[in-house]
């Protein structure tokens, strides 16, 4: 186990270097001249030249990249063009909002997906199974932005149960979280069902049944445990996606998270902000994937030797 963890940690390093390089390229080749963004369009040529030297923009590309890595190591992600504040202080509250959204979303996802999947698998071929399979297929096919619009229309405009936007009350998180969780929950339900079915067809389940154990015991104690592997993996990957890509849900409900901030950064052509956002999101995504792999190898020891 120990060597596997070390091996897996070492695998992250080239990915992180790749990520920082990609983020640097966005800045380097991206639209907008940073000096003009800072000084304004009407700055004198001498002033522009001095600022360019000060920022090190007259240096070769790889030198600039090294300098960027050095700043990054010290936690310096640059100054946002738009707000003129350090990028870290712009991103911190957004990161907090996104983490809250991610926790609630994954809670909803697990609560929707796992029981539904078990219910379908234990009633294989029956009416319950067929109905859940059709309904979850709708959930898988529905685009997040349309689900969000429907939730907004029904639960905010018509029923007035939840606020339409912002992050003021405790219940503001419900609709954006549900927007993502309905889709993820449908995916998880289908995954849980097929994982359960696969396990229920195994020999040891037949043995457990034939030695007279109660059906519930076989289903929940023997089968569910072994079906957990793909389910946990999917949950982990989904968590990674909410942490990084909840652009749509955050935009519809004006949730002040990372995805929305990044989208605005792109629209405002705020390169330092976009760069920092890309790095943070990709980093979180790698960390989550890392933990998923560790849990996976802990549940299924054969992976470690692969």
């Amino acid at each position, binding site marked *: 186990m120990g060597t596997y963890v070390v091996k897996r940690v070492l695998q992250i390093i080239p990915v992180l270097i790749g990520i920082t390089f990609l983020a640097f390229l966005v800045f380097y080749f*991206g639209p907008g001249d940073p000096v003009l963004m800072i000084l304004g369009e009407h700055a004198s040529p001498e002033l522009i030249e001095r600022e360019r030297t000060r920022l090190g923009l007259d240096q070769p590309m790889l030198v600039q990249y090294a300098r960027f890595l050095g700043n990054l190591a010290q936690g310096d992600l640059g100054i946002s063009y738009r707000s003129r504040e350090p990028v870290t202080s712009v991103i911190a509250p957004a990161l907090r909002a996104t983490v809250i959204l991610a926790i609630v979303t994954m809670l909803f996802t697990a609560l929707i997906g796992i029981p539904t999947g078990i219910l379908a698998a234990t009633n294989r071929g029956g009416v319950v199974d067929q109905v859940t399979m059709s309904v979850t*297929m709708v959930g898988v096919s529905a*685009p997040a932005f349309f689900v969000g619009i*429907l939730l907004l229309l029904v639960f905010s405009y018509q029923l007035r149960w939840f606020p339409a936007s912002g992050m003021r009350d405790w219940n503001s998180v419900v609709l954006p979280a549900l927007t993502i969780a309905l889709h993820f929950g449908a995916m998880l339900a289908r995954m849980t069902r097929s994982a359960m079915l696969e396990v229920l067809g195994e020999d040891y389940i037949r043995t457990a049944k034939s030695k007279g154990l109660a059906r519930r015991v076989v289903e929940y104690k023997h089968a569910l445990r072994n079906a957990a592997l793909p389910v946990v993996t999917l949950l982990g990957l989904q968590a990674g996606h909410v942490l990084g*890509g909840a652009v749509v849900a955050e935009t519809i409900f004006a949730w002040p998270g990372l995805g929305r901030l990044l989208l605005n950064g792109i629209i405002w052509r705020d390169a330092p902000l976009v760069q920092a956002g890309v790095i943070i999101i990709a980093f979180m995504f790698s960390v989550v994937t890392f933990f998923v792999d560790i849990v996976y190898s802990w549940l299924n020891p054969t992976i470690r030797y692969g």
Partner: protein
Amino acid sequence: MPTAIASTLILIAFLMTAAFAPSVAPMHPNQGNIRDRLQAPGGEYRLGTDQQGRDLLSRVIFGSRVALLVGATTVLIGLSVGGLLGVVAGYFGGWTDTIIMRTMDLLLAFPYILLVVAIVSILGPSLQNAIIAIGITNVPHFARIVRSVVIGLREREFVMAAGALGASQLRTIARHVMPNAIAPVIIVATLYFGRNVIAEATLSFLGLGVQPPTAAWGSMVAVGREYLRSSPHLSLAPGIALMFFVYALNTLGDALRDVLDPKTQ
């Protein structure tokens, strides 16, 4: 099986609608009568009109063209580039494999929609750039699937025999390896077709894809958002069309997987 046939029929219907959109649509999709703006469904305009008085049904019909075009071209980009990389990585192995697959992992290290948004932000928002961006995100997935098939086949007797009989590497790949990759690739292509249509609609919804006045389902839902309280049909009509289309695609993809991949039965 009946669901697979039903979804195939639905998809054919979408295809025909898109192909003959000018004759199927009752009105011009981009020209409206401003005096008839925001009409409710029913009456002269069957699905009502939008904020510029354009016939919503005609716009939904023309929107199917964008969806089909995006789905087909993005899958084609993913399949040709990813498939080629996958074959090369799987067949030659070693350093070639490591370099190609680590690059693919890097692309997979970003959340999907974010990668698309980032690429579009560099290239600029348009339908063509949306297609390029979405196509690029498909490349690693197709590369992985093709590579795993090729690796599984590389050591098989019939592939070795082809080499032993003097077939060139290119011929071995084209005649003996590729045909075996068709089934898994078809399944993945069907599912990604639907996913890519949603990705384009999402980009257009965020204002980063198809630009007005072209009718696209995603941007139509976005425009309707501003009139959601008074005229919800503006968002509902294109949204339901999109959902229906992707539902049919996913159902077909699932059925194909059951038929072509006996392990999941």
